[in-house]
Structures are given as C-alpha cells and as structure tokens.
C-alpha cells in the first residue's frame, strides 16, 4: 500500500501571482541579512572553525577521535577480538592479532588501524567492545588532512591514557587475566 498524503496548496491570489511583491519581500529578507552582517560582522553565527572553536559539550553522548585504553603495565587493553571491526558499518578498522608468549591474556593487536577518512564516527566500535578498550573520549574532533596517510590512526597514535576519565579502566572480560598476570610477574 502506498499511502498518499494530500497537501492543500492554497491557490495564489493575484498579487502573489504577479510575483513582484513576493520578489520584493524576498529581496527585503536577503538584503536585510546582507546589510546587518555588513554593518555588524561579529553578529554572524558562523564560527571560523580552525581558529575559533565552540567548546565541546563533553557529555557522555559526545563522540570524538578514538583512543585505545591501556592497562596499568602500559599494554593495550584491546585483545584483538575483532568485534569493533565486525560492528563497524564503514569497515574502517583494520586489526591484525598476535599472541603473547607468556601473558595469559594471550591475544593482543599487533596492528590496529582506524582509517578516519572512512570512519563515520558512529560509535558502534565503542558499543561493541567487550573489553572497554576503545573509547571516543579524547575531545579531539577528527578533522581533515592534506594526505590520506594523515587520516590513518595507527596503534601507536591510538594508545593513550587519559587519567581524568578514571583510567586505567578495570572493566572488560580479560581484565582478570591481565591482573593475574601482573600479580605473578610482581612476585617474580
């Protein structure tokens, strides 16, 4: 079934059909803006973006540039489970997993790239992460770049500690394994 919505378009009266008055009204609007902005350029709502910035709201819904959280020993919390890559609608995450020889966490990302030029900043990766390892709380807006490689976030650039957010985070499935491993290493 196609639903049909009937729109009651009012027939134009003669004055409107002649169009001249309407044109004058239109020009009054645009010219009004023109002169107002000409006389008082500071009154314009436009922000000169790279130089001027509106402070970010900083609430929980804000999604900014990604980061990978790190554990107390400096290793990435990420275990290369590929769930972010699976959830990513833009297919912008590239992960290559590797194995720790001793650490009971076993798995870590040898390569973790996010192609910002493809990222749609939807936050699905953060939602999907079972380890609380990826976050979008850096308060940095993913901006433009002059070359494609500049848009590529690598593991090295992603790994970052932000103590004010309560890092290192204790959430995540493999956290227990990591703590146990740290404890055994401490004893040695």
């Amino acid at each position, binding site marked *: 079934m196609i639903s049909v919505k009937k729109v009651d378009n009012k027939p134009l009266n003669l004055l409107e059909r002649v169009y*001249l008055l309407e*044109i004058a009204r*239109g*020009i009054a*609007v*645009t*010219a009004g*803006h*023109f002169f107002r*902005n*000409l006389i008082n*350029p500071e009154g*314009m*709502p*436009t922000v*000169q973006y790279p130089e001027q910035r509106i402070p970010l709201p900083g609430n929980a819904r804000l999604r900014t540039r990604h980061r990978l959280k790190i554990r107390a020993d400096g290793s990435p919390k990420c275990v290369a489970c590929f769930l972010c890559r699976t959830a990513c609608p833009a297919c912008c995450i590239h992960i290559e997993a590797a194995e720790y020889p001793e650490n009971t966490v076993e798995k870590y990302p040898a390569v973790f790239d996010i192609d910002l030029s493809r990222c749609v900043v939807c936050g699905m990766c953060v939602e999907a992460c079972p380890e609380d390892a990826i976050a979008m709380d850096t308060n940095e807006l993913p901006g433009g770049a002059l070359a494609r490689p500049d848009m590529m976030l690598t593991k090295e650039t992603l790994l970052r500690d932000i103590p004010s957010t309560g890092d290192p985070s204790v959430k995540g499935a493999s956290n227990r394994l990591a703590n146990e491993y740290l404890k055994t290493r401490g004893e040695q």
Partner: protein
Amino acid sequence: MTGFFEANREILLFTGLTAVKIAVFLGAVMGFTALLTLAERKVSALMQDRIGPNRASVFGFAFNGLFQPAADGIKMILKEDFMPERAEKLFFTLAPFFALVPALALFAVMPFGDYVMVFGCRVQLQIAELPLGLFFVLALSGLAIYGVILGGWASKSNFALLGAMRGAAQMVSCEVVLGLTLVGLMMIYGSAGLQNMVRSQGGLLFGFLPAWGVVYQPFAFILFLTAAIAENKRGPFDLVEGESEIIGYFMEYSSMRFAAFMFAEFVEIVLVAMLAATLFFGGWQVPYLYETGFLFPGGAQLPLNHYLVSAMQVGAFAAKTVFFSWFLLTVRWTLPRFRFDQLMGLCWKALLPLALLNILITGAVMKLPL
C-alpha cells in the same frame, strides 16, 4: 613630418583621446568586474550569514579576501587546458571570444559622464558617440548568443549542447522583449543615442522630481530588468547553466577558456547595471546638479567648479552601476531558478504583451493633449 601632424591634427587628437578613454574606461570596467567575482561570493555569503572567501593572502595579509580574484585567476591560468578529442577545434577555440568580445565592445557607447574640458578641448565622456547607440547595444548583445551556441555545439557533449539549445531559445525570446521595452523610452526622448537620452533626463518634473526614465516608464523598467537578467543568463533565469541539471554550454571548457565565459557573464552584469542606470536612472545625472552647480527646487544655489561637477557626475554613474550590480547579485541569490517552460511562458505570455501594451499606452499618452 610636422606637416603630417598639422594636416591630420583633428584625427590624431581624436584617436589619441579615444585610446585614452578606452584604456581608462575599459580598465575601470575590467577591474570592477574582477572585484564583482569576489562580490558575488561575498554578497551571497553575507546574506546567508556566512563570511565568504577570506583566506587568499599575500605575505600574510588577506584583507578579508581581496586577493581572491587574483588567486582565482592564477588558478585558472595554471589549470590544464583541456579540449575534448572530438570537439570542433576552431569553433571550440572561438566560442569564448564570441562571448567576451561583444560584451566588452558594448562599453563603447556607454556615456559615463557629460564632458570635460581638457586644455581647452571639450572631451565627451563617451568612447563612441553613436547617434543610434541603443541599437548598437541591442545588436551586439544579440551576438552574445553565438558564444553560447558555438561553445555548446563545438564541445560535442550532450549536456553542453542541451545547455546551448536552452541558451539560444532563452536569449532569442528575451531579446525581443528587451528591445520592445526600450521603444517607449525612445519615443519619449525622441532619440536612440545614449548620451542624448541621458541629457534628456536632466530636467525636473513638476519642479522637483528628477525627470529620469523610471519616472516616465516605471513599468518598462521592471520589464527591462527582467528581460535583461534573462538575456544575461543570470539567476533566477540561469537554466543555461543549471549546475544541478546540465552544467551548461561550457561544460567541456576548462582553464582560461572557461574563465573567459565566466568573465563575460560578469561583464554582462556590469553592462546591464550601466544600461539600467543610463536608461532609467539618469545615467551620470545627479539630481539638481547642473553645469554650474547645484540649483535646488527651493531656489537655493551652490555654484561649483566644472571639474568638480564632472567628477560628481562620473561618480554618480559609478555609484548607480555599483548599486545595480549589487541588486543583480541580490536577485540571483534570492530567487530560485525558473523551470524552462516557466521562463518561456513568462517571456512570451507576460513580458511580450506587456511590453507591447506599454508602447501603446506611451504612444496614447504622448498624443493626448496634456
């Protein structure tokens, strides 16, 4: 040798003066046109609460985008000059000139002032004093179609051809109206020379109202402006380009060839603005300013030097041109684009009968014993 100069003194003086006038006037027009490309972007920006181009800078000084036309020009020159493989090489190359040259030639008859005394010589502030200047204007503006048609056809591109076809139909239709709206003025002034028409607008009506064309023919002014914008292919009648649909007759053009088309369009804006000022708003006339100075309706007088009067007249012409240029930009950025059938309907069903009606009424009023 001296004998030659003596014998041909008149001609040499005339040629030299004309050359100087061409250099000064055309130079001013070209400079203004270049600024107009910036103005178009700035005006549209400001009326949309934006800022517009302000990044092009020389040694770190941007002057709020003043260097943008220069930057545009450099960019255009440096771009690849591309020609489609199957294009008609000769006409493809010629088309931009067909667009640009008639537009520039039109300034020859534009009176930008009354006259000025230089070393005892009376120098007319008009490059060519044609007695039938208005017909020269109509004739040359008719030539502008060739640029469009040749450009569209020689590109051998369907979109370009479509744009050219639209352009041809639109310009042919609007030219008729454009011509007819001016008949009323010619009847009133009894002349087709532009300088004469401007001079005729120097008087006063009812003792206080400047006897400008718009006072006699307000209706014709609206028709003229509409037809002129359509002839000029500017918004809201820019279907020839119609970026969102067909891109236009210059689709296959790049680099300076494309720039020539674009420049021609802006030159035509200046032209329409000057024509509107000349024909309907007294040209270089300043209200109550006569050759010797101001003479206000109340009887107050302000005698002025000849050069000051001339400068004010030229200034008035420039100010009117600037105003109408701004007005054309404003119209283009205010109104949405017409559909092609709407434009044709407007031309043939509204503008043309109204223009004829205007002539009829003008004639009737002139014959009435008033």
